[in-house]
């Protein structure tokens, strides 16, 4: 009986050893899997950092385009856009935190855009100031090389429409509706200067014309002013600066209501 127990204990201790080895093996492998998963999370956060970097550089490419359009729409040379983008590309190259960064660009040239710039201020009832370029950003990191292609378009558009009412004699009340858009979305204007044409010359509208501008808060402005003219058709021009200091001009002709 005792001999049998001893024999059983001996065989049990062998089984116990196998079970213990198995438990340790499970423990080690589960720990390894956990550590591996955690390291994967760290790698994905590195990828997220590069994604953040690309987003930040995209933002600054946009800022550069806005700066260039503000310059060109205020009388600057079209070449300013290329010069500014070259300056940005040079600064991007100086960043070393994520590896080597290279920013290439191509300004748009088509029926509207010339060297990436489109200024259309003579179209009836609408004016457009726009810039467009394509970019390729390459990130040569220690482990990965990432290339991101994107297009940036910055556009300020303004529309104007109106009519006049004869108040008596040659005095006329002009009513206008002016709207401002940034990238096809309603945007606020920083300043709107109005002019009307009388006897072939453009005259500024000011407070002496009982000028009233009602800001609707959604990029639409209701404007009214009075003028003395015998003309049946009154050409009106709106010179607008948006909040980014981009200039745009729109013309319309007002007839009697």
């Amino acid at each position: 009986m005792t001999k049998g127990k001893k024999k059983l204990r001996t065989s049990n201790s062998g089984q116990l050893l196998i079970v213990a080895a198995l438990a340790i093996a499970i423990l080690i492998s589960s720990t390894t899997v956990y550590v591996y998963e955690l390291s994967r999370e760290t790698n994905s956060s590195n990828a997220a950092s590069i994604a953040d970097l690309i987003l930040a550089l995209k933002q600054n490419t946009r800022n550069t385009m806005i700066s260039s359009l503000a310059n060109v729409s205020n009388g600057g040379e079209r070449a300013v856009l290329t010069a500014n983008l070259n300056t940005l590309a040079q600064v991007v190259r100086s960043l070393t935190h994520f590896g080597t960064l290279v920013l290439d660009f191509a300004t748009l040239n088509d029926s509207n855009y010339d060297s990436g710039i489109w200024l259309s201020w003579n179209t009836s009832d609408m004016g457009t100031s726009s810039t467009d370029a394509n970019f390729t950003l390459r990130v040569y990191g220690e482990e990965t090389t990432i290339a991101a292609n994107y297009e940036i378009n910055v556009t300020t558009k303004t529309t104007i429409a109106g009519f006049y009412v004869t108040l008596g004699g040659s005095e006329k009340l002009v009513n206008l509706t002016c709207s401002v858009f940034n990238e096809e979305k309603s945007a606020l204007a920083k300043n709107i200067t109005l002019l009307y044409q009388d006897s072939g010359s453009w005259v500024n509208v000011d407070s002496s014309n009982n000028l009233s501008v009602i800001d609707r808060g959604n990029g639409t402005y209701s404007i009214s002013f009075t003028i003395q003219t015998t003309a049946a058709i009154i050409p009106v021009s709106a010179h607008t600066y948006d909040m980014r200091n981009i200039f745009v001009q729109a013309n319309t002709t007002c007839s009697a209501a």
Partner: protein
Amino acid sequence: MYGLGWGSSRLKKADRGQIRIIEAFLAVLIIFSAFAVSADLTGSRSATKSESLASIGLHSLMKLDQDGRLGMYITDGDFTALREALDLILPAGICFNLTVYVTVYDEQMQRLNTDVITNGGFNSQEVAFVEYICASQSATLRCYVIHVNLGMAT
């Protein structure tokens, strides 16, 4: 036969001793591997935390740069407004040190702020570094490079 039986018993005792040594060795190995694994986990976790801190910093700068305010503050030399704006955007409990550089003569960088732009005592063990380019939206383009060190306030 008797002598051999005594010898076998002695051998069993000696074997038991060896098993004890192996057991002890295994126990020490398990404990040390547990230490090693936990040390590795701590390192990974702090790296992740540092990454997220950098991400928070970068996103805060981007938010400030969205409407051109960041470039405007720097161009105007209004570093107090810049510090206050960044302090407002960053979550509570994050401290920062900020330095602004401007590129001159091709690739040389010149520091713009003479005083350190900071929101308080920077005494954190967990530090994240963010490098950010800021192009102004003004009609005359200016490009700045911003270096920010972020840490958890202690």
